[in-house]
């Protein structure tokens, strides 16, 4: 926008943020890196292990299975939430008293603590006393998310759609409301069809916010822990054990620090790389 001046004293303004974030990010990250190369039998005695833990994690079937579940889950979530969210945003009113009502009601799921979301869906989907479970069963579906992997997946995905689609809606809506009225008038004069307006005016204008929406949904669904943990506990069996649930089991449950640390670093790297790749690719596209 405006020209920025070069001014090294600006570092003074940034220092508090750098100090706080560095304290919170670098020390824990170094702890993780430290553990990932060592073996311990307690009492703070450590042995150098080299890349042993990394090899072990990369070759383990358990990690591979969690990773596959995580990728499938995130893919399904993105395929449902992004188009659905955009569609809702497109059909929302632009002006009038209903706008605030819609926004407030839609934002509500975003502000409910994640374990309450899990507990709420737990109660909502119980096969005998929950509204969803009871309805599905009386419609003739054999539904019990505590026993059947398919039902568990269905519930976890429906819960996430319930929880997070509003984020996509709000972002898309923000993008839409930044389109000047003149664009629509021009389209009207040219006799553009409703679909043409969506395709050539609204979607291109939403591109930027959609990239943000995609990135946020990718990161957050890839890190999901609390909601499925409260809802299904990763079960039945390991059916809904995603990466974070598996990681917490290894780190805080079994206290296997080495493998947990190696797993953490691989996990973090996957998210960073994917975000970076996606961002560079979409931005390169935009520059052309």
């Amino acid at each position: 926008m405006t020209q920025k001046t070069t001014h090294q004293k600006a570092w003074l303004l940034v220092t508090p943020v750098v100090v706080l974030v560095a304290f919170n990010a670098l020390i824990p990250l170094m702890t993780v890196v430290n553990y990932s190369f060592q073996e311990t039998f307690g009492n703070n005695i450590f042995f150098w292990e080299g890349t042993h833990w990394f090899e072990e994690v990369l070759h383990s079937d358990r990690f591979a299975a969690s990773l596959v579940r995580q990728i499938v889950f995130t893919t399904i979530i993105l395929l449902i939430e992004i188009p659905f969210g955009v569609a809702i945003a497109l059909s929302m009113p632009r002006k009038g008293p209903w706008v605030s009502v819609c926004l407030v009601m839609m934002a509500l799921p975003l502000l409910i603590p994640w374990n309450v979301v899990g507990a709420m869906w737990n109660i909502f989907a119980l096969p005998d006393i929950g509204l969803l479970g009871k309805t599905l069963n009386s419609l003739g579906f054999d539904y019990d998310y505590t026993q059947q992997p398919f039902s568990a997946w269905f519930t976890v995905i429906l819960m996430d759609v319930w929880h997070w689609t509003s984020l996509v809606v709000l972002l898309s809506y923000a993008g839409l409301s930044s389109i000047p009225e003149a664009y629509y008038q021009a389209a009207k004069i040219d006799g553009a069809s409703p679909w043409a307006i969506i395709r050539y005016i609204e979607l291109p204008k939403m591109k930027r916010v959609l990239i943000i929406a995609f990135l946020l949904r990718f990161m957050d669904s890839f890190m999901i822990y609390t909601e499925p943990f409260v809802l299904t506990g990763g079960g039945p069996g390991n059916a809904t054990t995603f990466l974070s649930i598996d990681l917490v089991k290894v780190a805080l449950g079994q206290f296997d620090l080495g493998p947990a640390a190696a797993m953490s670093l691989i996990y973090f790297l996957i998210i960073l790389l994917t975000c970076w790749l996606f961002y560079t690719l979409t931005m390169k596209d935009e520059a052309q």
Partner: protein
Amino acid sequence: MKRYKWLAPTFYIVFLMLPIYWLLNMSFKTTNEILGSFTLWPRKFTLENYTTIFTDPTWYNGYFNSLTYVGINTIISVSVALPAAYAFSRYRFLGDKHLFFWLLTNRMAPPAVFALPFFQLYSAVEMFDTHIAVAMAHALFNIPLAVWILEGFMSGVPKELDETAYVDGYSFPRFFIKIFIPVIISGIGVAAFFCFMFSWVELLLAKTLTSVAAKPIAAVMTRTASTSGYELGLLAAAGSLTIIPGAFVIYFVRNYIAKGFALGRV
């Protein structure tokens, strides 16, 4: 087609409200009614679950603890992010782009990765089980977010404003507090909203860093669910109460929410 456009948002909102309704419904039922029958609304309306929560200190302290660390976190995050966002929006300095990217990478770190190291770090500095520890831990992802949002808002303010003020003889701190902050007050509101939101909903770190004195409401609920068997009504009542602060905050910032999401330049 235009006439039926309202249908989609309406159905969507109904879908959003159903689980919330079910939670409220359960919270007004007695345990017997919950387990004994399937009823769409409470037949024997009771406030017993809520009474338990408001009279038992472990329950209501949970709410105070949560609100305390969320409040501290919001204040810390926004106040350190303000000068930093100003620096990013106005100046070019050595390593500015890298620094901005590094800050954002912290938003991408899974809390599960940091749970154990945070526990060790805050135990080592003897801050385990304090509100400050949770507030500081949540600052890891809230500070980058606040910087990002505020930078977006500040970049929208013309630079002439700063220059005129300096010509008029304002010092930087005085200009910042007297002139600049009132101009971007809505941005501060949005940033505070998001800090509140992400700190209020997070549980994994909050639970790991506390045991008794600063235990969040969410963790009190987990304990009830696991130790005293199936007290669904109580759980539902506690859950319903956690929705209120969020609803309250959304109502205040409803006109800025959409804007806050749209700003910022990833």
